[in-house]
């Protein structure tokens, strides 16, 4: 315990620790706040001039407009929404036309927009995936929206996982656990989810940069030569240093993402956090999560990913005699899933991305985005949903990297 305490003292006396901690907290506030400013609402005033409001005022108006449709997404509400939509289109033409009156859009279409998206997606063409023409749907189609969700998932999986029946079966099994009817509460801006992912990625950079010098710095300054000759200067010191770094990273990530999530909840409202993820992302998403639990799952996996990234960086640090080289390796490790995601999309690239300790975080492809997606990885005749594969990889990697770090440090020999 004394060693742990003194190691903490040492780390906390380092200026860079406070700089990174400060940056993490500041970014959490900034990045949670920014998405709220993106919300916009436009209308025509009495003189025919278009007025645009943004931020909290825009959110209040949109929430007010969509309030009648908040709550359970029942087939009756879907049917009413469809009828309203069809009546408007019949009178004014397509909503994307310049002739469609803005105020009519605000009064009629905006309140039912989430329902329109739902219908468009689940009644999409089963062969091409093209969004449905809602003018061709009847009241009975709205009434069987949830049966259609299952059928749409089946056709989607047959299209995307044509040769993998195990993936199709698993997707159907996961979706069977999703609670219906869905729930929808207005007020959330999906940009906040992207900002959470970006914020977690920045936290990963911060924690990796903090972890890079833990062992390398002592090799570089030769402080290690003395410590290595002491009773507890090998296995115990390595275990304690790793623990301290993990605790520090945990505090940074827990505090940073905690502030981010609580601020997001406060800014967008408690109620909208109860929306089913299917009403915000794909209507046939495979997870039975509401928005709040979706964000928690994203942050939680981000936490595990950062833990694995920190441990992997510590392992590199225990092998590498240069802080700069360790930091470069650590950053490359963070960016590798993004790069692999950009250059390859096959099964192999998918496995590599999942197996990487940093695979759970990235731009465009990360655990949170995979929760909305239908990607499966295949091994022999079996298929694994990407979020499950990522979690399994993390469960193996976290203890493995910890063990390897201690082992490498213990066996390190000076040159």
């Amino acid at each position, binding site marked *: 315990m*004394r*060693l742990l305490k*003194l190691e903490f*003292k*040492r780390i906390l*006396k*380092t*200026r860079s620790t406070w700089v990174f901690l400060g940056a993490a907290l500041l970014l959490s506030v900034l990045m949670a706040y920014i998405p709220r400013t993106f919300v916009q609402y436009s209308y025509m005033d009495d003189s025919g001039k278009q007025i645009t409001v943004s931020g909290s005022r825009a959110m209040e108006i949109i929430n007010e407009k969509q309030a009648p449709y908040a709550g359970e997404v029942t087939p009756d509400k879907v049917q009413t929404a469809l009828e309203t939509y069809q009546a408007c289109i019949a009178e004014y033409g397509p909503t994307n036309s310049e002739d469609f009156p803005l105020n009519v859009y605000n009064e009629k279409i905006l309140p039912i927009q989430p329902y329109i998206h739902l219908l468009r997606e689940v009644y999409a063409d089963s062969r091409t995936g093209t969004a449905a023409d809602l003018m061709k749907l009847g009241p009975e189609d709205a009434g069987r929206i949830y049966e259609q969700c299952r059928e749409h998932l089946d056709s989607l999986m047959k299209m995307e996982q044509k040769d993998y029946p195990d993936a199709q079966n698993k997707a159907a099994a996961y979706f069977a656990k999703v609670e219906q009817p869905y729930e929808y509460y207005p007020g959330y801006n999906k940009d906040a989810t992207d900002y959470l992912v970006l914020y977690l990625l920045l936290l990963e950079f911060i924690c990796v940069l903090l972890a890079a010098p833990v062992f390398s710095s*002592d090799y*570089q*300054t*030769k*402080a*290690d*030569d*003395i*410590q*290595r*000759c*002491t*009773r*507890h*200067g*090998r296995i115990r*010191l390595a275990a304690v240093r790793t623990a301290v770094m993990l605790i520090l990273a945990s505090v940074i990530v827990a505090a940073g993402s905690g502030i981010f999530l609580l601020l997001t909840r406060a800014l967008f409202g408690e109620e909208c956090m109860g929306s089913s993820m299917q009403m915000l992302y794909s209507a046939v998403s495979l997870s039975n999560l509401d928005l709040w639990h979706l964000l928690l799952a994203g942050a939680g996996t981000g936490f595990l990913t950062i833990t694995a990234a920190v441990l992997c960086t510590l392992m590199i640090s225990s092998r590498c005699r240069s802080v700069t080289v360790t930091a470069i390796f650590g950053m490359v490790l963070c960016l590798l899933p993004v790069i692999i995601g950009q250059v390859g999309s096959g099964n192999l690239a998918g496995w590599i991305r999942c197996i990487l300790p940093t695979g759970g975080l990235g731009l465009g492809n990360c655990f949170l985005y995979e929760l909305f997606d239908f990607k499966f990885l295949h091994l022999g005749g079996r298929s694994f949903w990407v979020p499950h594969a990522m979690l399994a990889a993390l469960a193996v990697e976290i203890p493995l990297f910890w063990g390897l770090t201690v082992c490498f440090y213990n066996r390190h*020999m*000076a*040159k």
Partner: protein
Amino acid sequence: MELIIDDLSKKFKDKEAVSHVSLKLTPGVWGLLGANGAGKTTLMRMLGGTLKPTGGRVLYDGISIQVLGEKYRDIFGYLPQEFGFYPEFTVRDYLEYMAVLKGLPKRRSKEKIEELLERMTLSDVRKKKIAKLSGGMKRRVGIAQALLNEPEVLILDEPTSGLDPGERVRFRNLLSEFASHDRIVLISTHIVSDVEYIATCNAVMKGGKIQAVGTTEELVTLVNGKVWNGTIPAGQLAEYENRLQIVNLRNEADGRISVRYLAEKPGIEDSVPAVPRLEDLYLWMFPESRFDKEAD
């Protein structure tokens, strides 16, 4: 108690830094003499277990230090030639950190730290950040950490570099007293005066090999009849310096210079044999280090 170095070798790529060194270290102060690049530091790092030998082994009381592991490190103290501190730590913080690494109980470490701060005259700077200390003070902090666990085997690599003459004297006295309690102290140095009067035994290392081992008295017999005193005209100093290995010179009042030099036979008329010292042996064996010595 004995530390046996048994046929120890270390090869770095093509260069053999330490070549088949065998030595039996017994309690007392041991001086390891050798010029820069002789292999002293490499040998010491192998004794500390921070460098893996290419061949041979180190035995403490008959058991390999690799096998002893933590037990060996528990009775071991080490001050490397170059070492890093944590710049953000104060002197006291650092010693406390090292005391914990050495497994000292809290109360004992507190007492020991206070004692060493006092003995190493570091009490006034205990709360000062190490980064702000002078080179000599940093060295003293390094010596203090090596002594924290009252090691049975103490290895000091160039411990006096950066210390002023007064500090060197205090340090020598400290080591003499420390070694008198049945401990092995090995000091690597190329400053002969550091060990000349306190070493129980000396080992001279050159080219990765031990060239000679013995007490100061035994070793200086190797240069018996090779150390001379003579006087030369001041104007001819450069000429004599080219011909002879002059180890010391002093200007005399009459425009002449008294010189002490090393040679198989007298190189100056009327030279008289001088009583050899360890430094003469060192310079005899390492003539290329004459300028190092003068610089020191």
